[in-house]
């Protein structure tokens, strides 16, 4: 199998990141459970993180001046921290919503509809 004999490049990482991103977007659009929508957001953030890390990787970059270097990893670290904060707040909101509506279905949240 020729695929295993070749070294991986930047494009491989970008394709995996794109697949994760598209999966997350579809998950956000399709799920009716609010926690499922949150899981879609986590997938999207992971796809973006993978691109950051791949563009800054020591193994994949040439001696290009455009390579991110350690900046990519620092950005990915900030994304991870912000994702943790976002998950905490969103879960608190979801629990409040469940306590007041006795359901977690996001289609039922239509009080603000004009």
């Amino acid at each position, binding site marked *: 199998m020729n695929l295993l004999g070749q070294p991986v490049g930047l494009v491989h990482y970008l394709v995996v990141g794109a697949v994760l991103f598209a999966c997350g977007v579809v998950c956000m659009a399709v799920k009716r*459970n609010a926690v499922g929508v949150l899981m879609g957001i986590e997938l999207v953030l992971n796809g973006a993180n993978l691109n950051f890390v791949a563009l800054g990787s020591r193994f994949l970059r040439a001696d290009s001046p455009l390579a991110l270097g350690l900046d990519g990893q620092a950005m990915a*670290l900030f994304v991870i921290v912000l994702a*943790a904060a976002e998950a905490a707040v969103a879960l608190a909101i979801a629990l409040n919503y469940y306590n007041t509506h006795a359901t977690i279905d996001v289609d039922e949240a239509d009080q603000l509809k004009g």
Partner: protein
Amino acid sequence: MAVHWHSFFFWLMAIMACGFALAVVFSNNIVRMAFYLILSLGAVSGLFFLAGADFLGAMQLMIYVGGTVVLLVFGVMLTARRPWVDMQTSGGQWVLAAVVGALLLAVLLQTAFSVPPWQSSAAAAGALPPAAEPTAGPLGLAMVGVRVERMADRPAAESSSGLAGYLLPFEIVSVHLVVVLVGAAYLARARRRLSAAAPARPLEEAPQ
């Protein structure tokens, strides 16, 4: 035929990450979705390790897999009742989401393939990647404002542009994290005090 082990583990982790991400999308049971998400995020941390980001891979395992997903599982357990564990989406919405997702994936893939290859000459020749240097030290020093990995290849007399670290974003994100955690604790606690004062009111009055 010689197997390139770096590529072998890359393909293993990539197939795991993409496959379990698809399983998250196509599963209807919220508990199984949480489990597939754990496996997908773990595989992504393996990809981080393979790209040479060892500290970031460890942080991904500790914060995401060990923290965020546990938080999500607690959310599932606190909100999962039998009728709402399996919530079905109608077929029309599935078709619409699949079309939009396929279009988005096509655009992203086209962009990804148009990026010029960045492989260094040694990697393009098929050599194994060099031994990993730990990135925790330079990353931690960058957070306090010293870019040691960039100081090596420039003389001290040169201008210090590009040497700025991440001290200010680090402080901002720290304060942000504190505010967010206090806010989340307040949001999650306030309703419980209310419902303790008026027990079991929301469940009966809730419109279905």
